């Protein structure tokens, strides 16, 4: 994985010093809270319901065991012993004191980490496929391109006061495991007919209160024009994105209002101009970065596991992903124990995952946007030993992509924006489906829960989505069906009137019953919904 050189380290150190100085000026009264707010946000520091929250960047979700262990230590030293992994492949700490913030940033800088641009109206931490560089089905490792874009987007002088936040995702497989087309810019690394590597650009996707699937605006950008093309996309947005209404300020609204053709025309015009401006880093830089992502030395070994222990076999079948080397798999560590808080891990669990990564996965971990952790390169021969240790640490839940593996935002338990709680709902649903044994029958079923319209819990992209709203002072939950964040991307549709907390749990039960009754062959919930449509589900819910 990528290692800072002295230049990268100096950039992060300079930023820590800059923030220390900003915090000093705020305390001296030289900065008003309104002036300080965007500065602290661009350093990952939010003011939440009960305390400050610090969001730490994990670029494209990749980190090493030393970094992971440091995240565990920060949870114990500065938080209440927990970290919360998020849908942005980041980690958040929910109980931070303002006076500790600069010290935490300094601790992070020691392990090549930071909280830069994890918030604010700037280009955010870049996300990617959590199986990048390991999976059997990609054309190339997308992370060198993500790293190139990370460097380009860090402290970008022109794009630090955009109309609104800006999220970029880079993948390199036809399988989309990163919700690529629900980003402001989705980049898919592809090969053209001449077998040259380039980038396909999708612009204007997003969730929030106006969900949109990004249309493709360019099917092939040559690699030596990648940054220039991104710069053109951003410049058109910075100049013409709406600033009169923060709810209409994301690039998806601009693309929608201009139309894909007109937005594309403007980007192409700006791109033609920028091509002469020397914006693009030379390909030698991409080559330098790519060296950091070269494969570890894989060894041939066992290609199957001993299937005598059913608990182990269940975990292997559910929580491992096929690797490009046939003696390895990528192993998913579920942070969704039955009745737990999705994405939470204790400081001790984080250190255990760090140690296991060192022992079993060439020192590397990934954070998934589904709030789980991946050990990308595990020998099949080591799987039983790994699982035994995970299970002992309450990290062995065999539930990847099942209804128990739901995404949930922090909701009204923590978040200043939320209208309703999401965590208790997530906990109750996982307990209920685990107890009834129905999880197994339902197979792949992506449940996503947001506590407000901002959709941090990705409810628009859930096979089943739940949105918490405030109805005259009472928490109320809307149910939606048919969303997907994958390569078959679609936006979920609302079933009808909302439910109480108890009612929505019943409603989830009912729609899964409809699926089990109507399912044909190997259909997933989503496939059945797409075949039979909304009506049978509505009938069960409201009939």
């Amino acid at each position: 994985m990528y290692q800072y050189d002295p230049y990268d380290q100096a950039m992060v150190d300079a930023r820590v010093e800059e923030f220390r100085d900003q915090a000093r000026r705020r305390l001296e009264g030289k900065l008003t809270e309104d002036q300080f707010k965007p500065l602290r946000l661009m350093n990952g520091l939010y003011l939440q319901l009960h305390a400050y929250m610090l969001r730490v960047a994990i670029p494209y979700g990749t980190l090493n065991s030393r970094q992971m262990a440091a995240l565990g230590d920060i949870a114990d030293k500065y938080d209440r012993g927990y970290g919360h992994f998020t849908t942005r492949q980041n980690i958040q700490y929910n109980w931070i004191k303002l006076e500790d913030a600069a010290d935490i940033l300094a601790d992070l800088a020691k392990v090549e980490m930071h909280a830069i641009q994890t918030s604010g109206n700037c280009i955010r931490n870049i996300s990617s496929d959590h199986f990048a560089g390991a999976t059997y089905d990609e054309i190339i490792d997308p992370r060198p391109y993500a790293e190139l874009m990370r460097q380009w987007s860090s402290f970008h002088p022109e794009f630090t006061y955009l109309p609104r936040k800006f999220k970029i995702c880079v993948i390199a497989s036809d399988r989309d495991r990163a919700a690529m087309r629900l980003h402001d810019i989705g980049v898919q690394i592809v090969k053209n007919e001449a077998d040259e590597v380039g980038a396909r650009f999708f612009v204007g996707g997003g969730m929030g209160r106006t969900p949109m699937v990004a249309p493709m605006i360019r099917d092939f950008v040559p690699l030596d024009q990648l940054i220039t093309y991104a710069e053109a996309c951003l410049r058109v947005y910075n100049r013409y994105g709406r600033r009169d209404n923060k709810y209409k300020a994301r690039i998806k609204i601009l693309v929608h209002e201009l139309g894909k053709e007109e937005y594309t025309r403007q980007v192409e015009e700006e791109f033609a101009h920028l091509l002469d401006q020397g914006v693009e880093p030379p390909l030698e830089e991409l080559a330098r970065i790519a060296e950091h992502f070269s494969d570890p030395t894989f060894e041939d070994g066992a290609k199957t596991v001993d299937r005598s222990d059913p608990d182990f076999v269940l975990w292997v079948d559910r929580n491992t992903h096929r690797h490009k080397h046939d003696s390895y798999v990528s192993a998913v560590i579920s942070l969704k124990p039955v009745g737990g808080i999705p994405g939470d891990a204790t400081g001790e669990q984080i250190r255990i995952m760090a140690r296991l990564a060192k022992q079993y996965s060439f020192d590397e971990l990934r954070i998934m946007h589904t709030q789980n952790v991946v050990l990308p390169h595990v020998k099949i021969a080591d799987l039983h030993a790994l699982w035994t240790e995970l299970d002992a640490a309450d990290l062995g839940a065999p539930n990847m992509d099942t209804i128990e593996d739901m995404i949930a935002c922090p909701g009204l338990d923590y978040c200043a924006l939320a209208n309703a709680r999401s965590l208790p709902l997530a906990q109750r649903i996982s307990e209920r489906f685990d107890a009834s044994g129905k999880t197994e029958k339902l197979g792949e079923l992506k449940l996503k829960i947001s506590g407000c319209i901002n959709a941090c819990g990705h409810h628009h992209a859930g096979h089943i989505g739940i949105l918490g709203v405030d109805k005259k002072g009472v928490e109320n939950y809307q149910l939606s069906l048919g969303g997907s964040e994958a390569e078959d991307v679609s936006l979920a549709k609302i079933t009808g009137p909302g439910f109480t907390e108890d009612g929505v749990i019943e409603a989830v039960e009912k729609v899964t019953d409809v699926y089990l009754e109507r399912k044909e062959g190997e259909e997933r919930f989503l496939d059945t919904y797409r075949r039979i449509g909304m009506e049978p589900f509505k009938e069960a819910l409201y009939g």
Partner: protein
Amino acid sequence: MAEDIGTSPDDVQFRFRDDEMADHATVTVDACCDQTNATAVRIEPSDDARVLLPFLDRLALVEVNFPSFADGRGYSAARILREEGYTGELRAVGDVLIDQLSHMRRCGFDAFAPTSPLDEDDAARAFATWENVYQHAEDTRQSRLGNARRTLVELRHE
């Protein structure tokens, strides 16, 4: 003659140029297009900087107004003018604060007239924030500003 809507030389707190300051009425972008002898113009966030391209040779001062520091359109306006070869004074005016100075400088601003004067020490620190930079911008364009700063990529591959 259009009304002078600009800042005066006295309002300029920081300037990175050796030439004389233009002391001529600053007009709106619309007026600048109509008025063939205007040498100073003020760009508002909603103005298209490219409208000025036919007149760049006669302009000695372009003011870019930041009514709010949070509105970043002026950064693009500045870069576009520099990319198109504008070499006159590019002055950031309005809600210009300490923490925007380094980025503004990178985008090609070489004069600053903040509505509220800034602390000199804090400003000096802000201008010196980045010893190196990741991206190519106006400060790394060797042929124009003459200070020949290099990007990290250039330093890595020299």
